[in-house]
């Protein structure tokens, strides 16, 4: 219990820290949204007028307080450039990015965990080597390149075996769920295969450690076959570790996702962020960055709590340091 309270306090503190860092960092950027809006060939007076209109001339502390106060109310402000509420902006983009991440993760888990188990169970050296090499190569492919290869292979219209659309998101978005999912398949496969390969290695090493720990022996002595013991007992024991790994992977996937979004022309958070930074739409950018950071902090928090829930030994420990590993 004390742990949870402490972890929550830390979460809040981290959120505050992130908000300050994000806000401050963005103010160092040269140029502002007013000059972007005015563009070439507008007189300076117009830029100044726009600045005044958007409140960009107020002291930074006031601007921060204004923003932070909005955040507390759950109001992320209004994007100056697009005129839309940042909340709806983020929601629209997140409705592409998060399904993509989740799909990618599903692919990764579906590839990584069974292969990891298979690699653990493999009895012949040749099979083990094959899994090893596959895992190594899969995890070493740059997302950008892997995506291109998949496009070359499977993109509808251009690929060798045209199956899936390779760019864009259906205009109707999730109103047409079939199409929406369809357009996310290649991107999700790209992220999923790469992440799945490393997940496979994690699964294998976690299972390997457990297989040597006597718990598998015990289960087998009770009458399980090796396969049963590894999938039943081993996976369950590896779960806390795997949850942590997946949590981290989740966060790290966003890099690949940003690249992939650009490559597949998906108007998600990744591609949106880059444009917004370019346009100096700082209110939108700071809220988006803050939201993303908050989201990943939240994932971290959930993973930590889940980790504890999954391991009864941790559930009663006051401090993670008390239990090794």
């Amino acid at each position, binding site marked *: 219990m004390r742990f949870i309270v402490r972890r929550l306090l830390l979460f809040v503190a981290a959120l505050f820290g992130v908000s300050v860092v994000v806000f401050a*960092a963005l103010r160092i950027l040269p140029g502002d949204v007013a000059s972007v809006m005015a563009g070439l060939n507008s007189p300076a007076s117009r830029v100044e007028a726009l600045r005044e209109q958007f409140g960009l001339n107020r002291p930074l502390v006031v601007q921060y307080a204004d923003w932070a106060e909005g955040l507390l109310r759950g109001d992320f402000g209004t994007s100056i450039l697009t005129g839309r509420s940042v909340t709806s902006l983020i929601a629209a983009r997140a409705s592409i990015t998060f399904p993509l991440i989740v799909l990618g993760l599903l692919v990764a888990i579906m590839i990584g965990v069974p292969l990891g188990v298979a690699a653990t169970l493999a009895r012949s050296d040749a099979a083990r080597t094959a899994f090893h090499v596959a895992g190594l190569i899969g995890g*070493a*492919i*740059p997302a950008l*390149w892997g995506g*291109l290869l998949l496009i070359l292979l499977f993109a509808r219209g251009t690929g060798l075996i045209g199956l899936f659309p390779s760019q864009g998101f259906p205009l109707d978005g999730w109103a047409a769920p079939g199409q929406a999912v369809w357009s996310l398949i290649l991107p999700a496969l790209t992220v999923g295969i790469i992440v799945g390969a490393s997940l496979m290695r994690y699964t294998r090493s976690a299972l390997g450690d457990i297989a040597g720990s006597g718990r598998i022996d015990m289960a087998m002595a009770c009458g399980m076959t090796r396969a049963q013991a590894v999938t039943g007992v081993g996976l369950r024991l590896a779960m806390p570790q795997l949850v942590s790994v997946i949590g981290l992977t989740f966060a790290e996937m966003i890099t690949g996702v940003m690249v992939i979004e650009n490559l597949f022309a998906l108007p998600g958070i990744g591609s949106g962020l880059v444009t917004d930074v370019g346009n100096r739409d700082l209110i939108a950018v700071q809220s988006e960055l803050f939201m993303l950071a908050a989201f990943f902090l939240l994932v971290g928090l959930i993973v930590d709590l889940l980790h504890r829930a999954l391991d009864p030994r941790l559930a009663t420990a006051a401090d993670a*340091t008390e239990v090794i590993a």
Partner: protein
Amino acid sequence: MWRRSEGKFALVVLGLWLFVALVSLFWTPQPLLATDGYHVWAKPSAAHWLGTDGTGADVLSWLMAGSRTNLLIVVLTVLFAGAFGLLLVAAMVARKSALAGASVVVIDALISIPTVLLALILAVPLGASITVIVVACGFGYGLNLARVARPAALLAARSSYVESALAAGASGWWTFVRHIVPNTLPVLLVQLSLSAGTAVLAESGLTYLGIGVPSGVPSWGHSLATSVKFINVYPLTVLWPGLIVTIVVVALNVFGDVLRDAADPLSNPELRRS
């Protein structure tokens, strides 16, 4: 190391990398800066073994020169991550439980922030630069390193040999440098080699997003990013940097595994011969 086939592979690839990076400082098949607008996207020829890119520059020369940038990035990132990670490990195994507890929780919180977010924020004041890659990756991987190394480090920190050393009057620092680090080294080596590989991958991703290596600086990510859009027209030009990155990353990962086994007296009986 050499005796195992994967060790051979890793050493050959990494050796070649180092060699090419050094050579590229003095010599490339074509001058790096030479562009030729009349011969863009040329097919491989005697003068241009891998053809030319969109400016008519020699692809091979850029890849060779790119190897030194990537080497620099990898070395700096690994050093940064290693130093930062070790610092965190030191904090986590500190005998002051407040420091240890706080560092664990802080790491757990920070580790969930993706590298690319950090890079995006860093790129704000710094612009696209190698520094962005090194600092963002180094920071993220350092956190990762600390987290992964924690069990081994804690095991060592609470071991009787550390107790014995402490009982004999050793300082905490002595035990950290002489006992805890060497006994965490296998994990550190593997993790650092993973970080090195990830840094190569991150370079290509961040450069593609425009927050990595600045224009005009040769790097594999640069070669990849500039040729990517021509994949339908000139697929070979995209093939090379991607292939190089993949092979190098595999080699780095394998290198870590093999190095761990080869450099650790526990797993390498050779080293135990007196």
